[in-house]
């Protein structure tokens, strides 16, 4: 293969990748996740399609079973709530009252079946409060599994 054909091949590859990104990536990225309200409004039309839902984890809704790795919680956008079921451990920053985006499918009549959880963090950065727990400690408590319900 000459240098020119190699470069042409490489160039074509980049063009195809760019076209793919612009076509599917941007369109998909523009509606990166749905809010619980939007999901509710869609009703059955959204069922059994793979999609992303984003919102805040409702405080008190998080349940974790260490034996089965089953994680259930509710996501809210302040108006509607969506129940989510997930198997596996969530990312470190995932916690009640924090933002999260879940990927999975909606089962009609049931909870949203999540195959992946992503934690969303804010653009605020600050040291731990004076007298409060150290960053290391906070980090530890985030990683620690939630207590199982008696």
């Amino acid at each position, binding site marked *: 293969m000459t240098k020119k054909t190699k470069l042409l091949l490489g160039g074509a590859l980049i063009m195809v990748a760019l076209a793919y990104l612009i076509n599917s990536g941007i369109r998909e990225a523009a509606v990166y996740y749905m809010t619980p309200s939007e999901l509710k409004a869609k009703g059955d039309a959204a069922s059994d399609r793979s999609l992303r839902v984003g919102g805040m984890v409702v405080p008190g809704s998080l349940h974790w079973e260490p034996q089965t790795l089953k994680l259930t919680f509710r996501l809210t956008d302040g108006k509607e709530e969506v129940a989510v079921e997930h198997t596996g451990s969530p990312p470190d920053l995932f916690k009640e009252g924090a933002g999260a985006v879940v990927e999975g499918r909606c089962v009609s009549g049931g909870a949203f079946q999540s195959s992946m959880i992503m934690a969303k963090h804010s653009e605020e950065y600050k040291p731990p409060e004076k007298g409060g727990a150290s960053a290391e400690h*906070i980090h530890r408590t985030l990683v620690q599994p939630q207590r199982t319900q008696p």
Partner: protein
Amino acid sequence: MVQGAMIGRGCERALGILTVIGLVIGLYIAFVYAPADAVQGEVQRLMYLHVPLILISYLAFFVVFVASILYLWRRDRQYDAIAHSSVEIGVLFTALSIAVGSIWGRPTWGVWWTWDARLTTTAILLLMFLGYLMLRALVDDPSRGATFCAVLGIIGFLDIPIIHMSVVWWRTLHQPASMLRPGPSTVALNMQVALYANLVAFGLLYAYLLIKRLQIERAREELLRLQMELLG
């Protein structure tokens, strides 16, 4: 003439030393002076690499944008050399910033990569300027290659405002801007110091690399000219 060259070399050397000092101070401030983040802990220190790298690559592509316009207008090879050199550094910095961002994303978000608007538009930026470098190598006629690349360089730069606004226009996993934003910064003061120190250090590194890269370009043209002279 000779004296001017010596002064130039002295300045270049001073810039090189300043860059090394800046990077060492930047590292010290990032690891020792700045506190760990309350929510993310130590891993948040990756911000002091991730943010300066991408901001300096914006600067590099802005230089490409201006130099490309000047080349199309004046047709001076010097502007083309600046654009070409700046693209190479910009591509390096963008790729590094994406790599660091990915390493930061895994422990915080839980994923190495996701197709949200911020990440997708940044990937497009990297691909466009990789295409620029390929196009440069592909076109045999240097002046035609320079013209094509100048057009691509201008178009490529236009992606940067889109990247910047992506977190405002669309829903993303990536958090909104904490520095280039209206209103007060959302970053604690001593963390801002670490960001700005590293921004300056990487700015110096960019300037130094650009000077070095332009020297290579000049040497290459000199070599071509000598070859032409010898071969007739």
